[in-house]
């Protein structure tokens, strides 16, 4: 029974991906169950399309920048929240963890459109603003991942032990807390990269024509040939997995070199 359900669910998840893969190499696909013919033409077309190539690079830049910014912000934030919560000020922690659920991303985008479309701050459509939006959007996910790990590991005990051995606050953080959080930082950043690469709503509202991200450009592909759209979507899939892999390997390297 359980196995049957999970099989069905897996099929439901994987079937669209399988169809995309098939469609991306299919010659002609209109009003049939499966496409006819085999071709690599759609990928060639995609490669020759400059707007897609540019969008690909933009998405990578945005995702990696968001990862970098979030690493700098989330570690101290989670650490402060962890210690703050133990002292009783857990309201801030709850706000941070509830934000992505309670506030729709689109609200953030509309807010940005109002604020940054003024003479005082005319930055709507600029790359830094897009990166900032992605960073803010994904920050709570990373912070939550780190917070969960902090609580789970009971790091305060290890910090106390380090303190009695002579470690100052900074030495406890850099020598004990940071290395212990390596795993959850990696998994959190994978999530950040994946969310950022696949994010459509906010990006669609905040980008200018010059720095559209991949999902924004992808929408247009569906007005054209099915095979082309399939190929473009497969590339997004690859991009999302690749950025996740990249960010994790980066973090690993950084953690190994002292």
């Amino acid at each position, binding site marked *: 029974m359980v196995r049957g359900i999970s099989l069905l669910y897996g099929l439901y998840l994987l079937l669209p991906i399988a169809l995309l893969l098939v469609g991306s190499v299919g010659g002609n696909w209109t009003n049939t169950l499966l496409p006819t013919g085999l071709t690599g033409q759609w990928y060639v077309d995609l490669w020759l399309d400059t707007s897609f190539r540019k969008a690909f690079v933009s998405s990578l830049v945005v995702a990696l920048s968001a990862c970098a910014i979030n690493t700098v912000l989330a570690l101290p934030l989670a650490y402060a929240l962890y210690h703050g919560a133990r002292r009783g000020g857990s309201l801030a922690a709850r706000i941070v963890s509830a934000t992505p659920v309670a506030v729709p991303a689109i609200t953030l985008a509309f807010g940005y459109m109002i604020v940054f479309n003024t003479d005082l701050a005319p930055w709507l459509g600029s790359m830094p603003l897009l990166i900032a939006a992605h960073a803010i959007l994904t920050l709570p996910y990373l912070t939550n991942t780190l917070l969960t790990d902090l609580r789970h*590991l*009971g790091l305060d*005990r*290890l910090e*106390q*032990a*380090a*303190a*009695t*051995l*002579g*470690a*100052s606050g900074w*030495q406890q953080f850099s*020598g*004990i807390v940071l*290395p*212990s959080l*390596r795993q959850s930082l990696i998994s959190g950043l994978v999530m950040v990269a994946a969310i950022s690469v696949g994010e459509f709503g906010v990006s669609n509202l905040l980008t200018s024509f010059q720095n559209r991200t991949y999902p924004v450009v992808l929408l247009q592909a569906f007005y054209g040939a099915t095979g082309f759209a399939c190929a473009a979507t497969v590339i997004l899939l690859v991009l999302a997995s690749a950025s996740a892999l990249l960010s994790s390997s980066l973090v690993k390297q950084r953690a190994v070199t002292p």
Partner: protein
Amino acid sequence: MSLLLDTVSYNYPGSTHGLHEVSLDVRTGELVAVIGPSGSGKSTLLKLVSGLETGHTGRIALDGEDMSRTPVHRRHIGMVFQSYALFPHLSVLDNVAYGLKLRKVATAERRQRAQALLDTVGLGEYAQRAVAQLSGGQQQRVALARALAIDPRALLLDEPLSALDASVRGHLRDQIRAIQQRFGATTLLVTHDQEEALAMADRVAMLKDGRLLQIATPREIYEQPASRAVAEFVGLSTILPAKVAGLNKLDLGFAQLAAPTGMRAPGTALHVLVRPEHIAADPAPGTPNRIAGRCGAQRYLGALTRYDFEVPGAPKPFLAESARPATEAIAIAPEHLRLLDH
């Protein structure tokens, strides 16, 4: 290095828990065990000495130097935690060397010193292992080596054996004590296990409700407890209310017993303490302080049987130990009746 606590008081914010004017000293190389029921303040005491908790009144001094304003990481006090608190991302050797690394000891030297300490605790060949590969008892030995590596001015042991299996505990207890004596470490041991305290300590301090009730050698605290609270916590016993009936005469209501009443006036209400090993089973008729009754619940312990001896009219049965339980009477020698005035 001697450790001195002088009228130390501490209140947890918004509660009555804490410490109330606790004064005790730990002499150089001495092991003082702090015992008491949970909530007695013994952990608070340890945290204040380590500096993990601050905000007390009174003086905490190491070799005469007041530590109250020194932050935890500058106190040079080694601490062993109940949960071991080893660093999971470091090898066994690096755990032990951690304090030396912070003190900027050169790599080769700190490795050598850490290795020597691991050899001392019998874990020399585990140096390169990951912490998680070790058993609980082994982890606690690493934690001890780590605390000793910094050549601490005092050693604090916070329930070091509580998380371990009974089979490991006894052996590790002896090992910790032997190493502590070898290093001459001035040591404060906190434990809820009074047997552990009696077995390991030079002196035992009993805390209750944040107050120090008694500090004495294990023998003294067992044989001459200062109060009922101490007697109830340390060792097994039967404690019964009694009244002084006259010189060296005690009235327990259900029995008249001979006991050294000293200078107490007749009519003084007090409690009388009897240890189970001082109760003689089935004494010859005419033995002083002979009490008739019958045997209740029995627990066979191998060499001994511990049993309840029920006496008609007594508020509770006597707890007794002997090779063979009494069938009809017990006797308690007068010198083994300990009178507790409060």
